[in-house]
């Protein structure tokens, strides 16, 4: 094949003229600008709102039913456990939020305009993680406390009412919000790695919901697996009385936090190296 190469013949006058000044040279964007970008994107898609609304409805709704089921014989730990039982299902909606924050961008192709606007992908993904963490933390804390309030109101007469002045109760509620915040970021990492919504959602539901249920059917091995399973370990923070077989509440949540940071780091490195 012949390669035809000629000089730039037309229109000559403009070729070497200095380019006019452009908008460049202004303030360089920083991390905070990437955060603003991610926040505008997160709040302007509907899935953000319906996933979080679903998490609230499921958790609060089941919390009311659970509160109603509490018995006068139950201690604080049991009563709180029944009120917060809906979190095991409601957390799945928080997972969807985290996953969709990543996969909806890949699905629509808008990840390309995102990466051309902020080519420093580490910065961008850190901003994305911060937004997901903050939104999940605020929403998660609100959901947990609202569930506590609604579930407490639904308690039958004679049932011991858990009190916020009980340190262990407060730890469970504040910790529950933190758990959901970490879960959002954990799911974001899954979404970034898998890039497709279907795959990401399947993985998130399997990890948080299906596999832990399967583990319960596996006897002793299942118990060990469940003990070290990141989301199950993180949920120990919801317990007022730590169980002897599981990790303690705070170490359990810390373990999940470490797993989340590792998952996010892997997702960031992978995304940085992959073609968009």
């Amino acid at each position, binding site marked *: 094949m012949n390669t035809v190469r000629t000089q730039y013949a037309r229109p000559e006058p403009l070729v070497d003229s200095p380019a006019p000044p452009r908008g460049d040279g202004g303030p360089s964007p920083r991390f905070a600008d990437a955060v603003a970008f991610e926040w505008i994107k997160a709040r302007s898609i509907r899935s953000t709102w319906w996933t979080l609304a679903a998490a609230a409805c499921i958790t609060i709704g089941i919390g009311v039913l659970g509160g109603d089921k509490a018995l006068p014989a139950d201690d604080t730990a049991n009563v709180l456990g029944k009120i917060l039982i809906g979190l095991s299902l409601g957390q799945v909606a928080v997972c969807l939020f985290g996953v969709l924050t990543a996969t909806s961008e890949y699905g629509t192709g808008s990840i390309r*305009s995102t*990466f*051309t606007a902020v080519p420093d992908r580490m910065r961008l993904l850190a901003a994305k993680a911060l937004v997901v963490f903050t939104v999940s933390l605020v929403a998660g804390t609100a959901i947990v406390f609202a569930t506590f309030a609604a579930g407490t109101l639904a308690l039958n007469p004679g049932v011991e009412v858990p009190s916020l002045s009980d340190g262990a109760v407060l730890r469970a509620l504040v910790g529950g919000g933190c758990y959901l915040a970490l879960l959002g970021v954990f799911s974001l990492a899954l979404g970034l790695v898998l890039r497709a919504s279907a795959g990401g959602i399947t993985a998130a539901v399997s990890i948080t919901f299906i596999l832990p249920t399967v583990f319960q059917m596996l006897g002793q091995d299942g118990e060990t697996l469940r003990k070290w399973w990141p989301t199950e370990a993180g949920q120990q923070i919801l317990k007022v009385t730590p169980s002897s077989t599981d990790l303690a509440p705070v170490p359990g949540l810390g373990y999940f936090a470490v797993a989340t940071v590792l998952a996010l780091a892997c997702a960031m490195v992978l995304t940085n190296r992959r073609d968009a």
Partner: protein
Amino acid sequence: MIEARGLSKRYGDKVAVDDLSFTVRPGLVTGFLGPNGAGKSTTLRMIVGLDQPTSGTATVCGRPYRELARPLCTAGALLEAKAVHSGRTAREHLRGLAASNRLPKRRVDEVLEQVGLTATARRRVGGFSLGMGQRLGIAAALLGDPEVIILDEPVNGLDPEGIQWVREFMRGMADEGRTVLVSSHLMSEMQDTADHLIVIGRGRLAADSSMADFLARSSHNGVVVRSPHTARLVPVLRGDGATVDALVDRDRAGEQDRAEDPPLIVKGLDARRIGELAGQNGLWLHELAPQRVSLQEAFMELTADAVEYRVGQRRTAEHIGGAA
């Protein structure tokens, strides 16, 4: 200014872009042409740092795109139509992009105005037509008032009005001294727009030349001649060194059927010489038209051995033995 040096991209065994080197200059509309699958989009993605080249480098204004401090102010790219979350409004999409590069909010309104989307700025992008999606993509590319504008198949699927708008837009941007790189798989889209052409086939550079040179080099140049004396004219012209063929042209098929004097395409002689020869021999001419070669033909010729598959390629001229 965009520079590619030895740019290559392999996907597994498949070589999508093969050792491309070119420079895209400011002040010109540079058409980036090649058949489907030639590697245009892959090249553009490498230029804006989305895909990692297997080897080679691409720079925008002298730097790799991913090292640009404020990328939207240096280069704006439209890579895919409607690559926006369908639930978002046009304004929200642009607001986010503007925030990411510390651009003032008023730029959002300015570019919406510039592309004519002000009235639909608050509607969800999901309801946009393809043309509106393209306009939104162009608005995004313009946000930072960039030096370099990169458009991948911007007129794909647009109505004639939209195509005209994109053409004028590109012309205007180049006239302001910006670097405009626009890809297309259709030559006809470039014919009236591009000043310079970079043609690739199967990932390899096939041509890098001004539009004028590109046309001049094509061997398809010729003169359309119609005469009631074809039988006598053809030997005269051939005697003077011309190649004479019957013009088989879809556009003129109707004429051909009823014409007693089928049009000829004469190569190797210019219109003046043909006219003189006819006059000297007392032969009438009903038409004597130097043919401006279509870019599509020049393109097909150039990429003929580079095209992966050639479907129903039409020959424009067929030899007429004996002539009449």
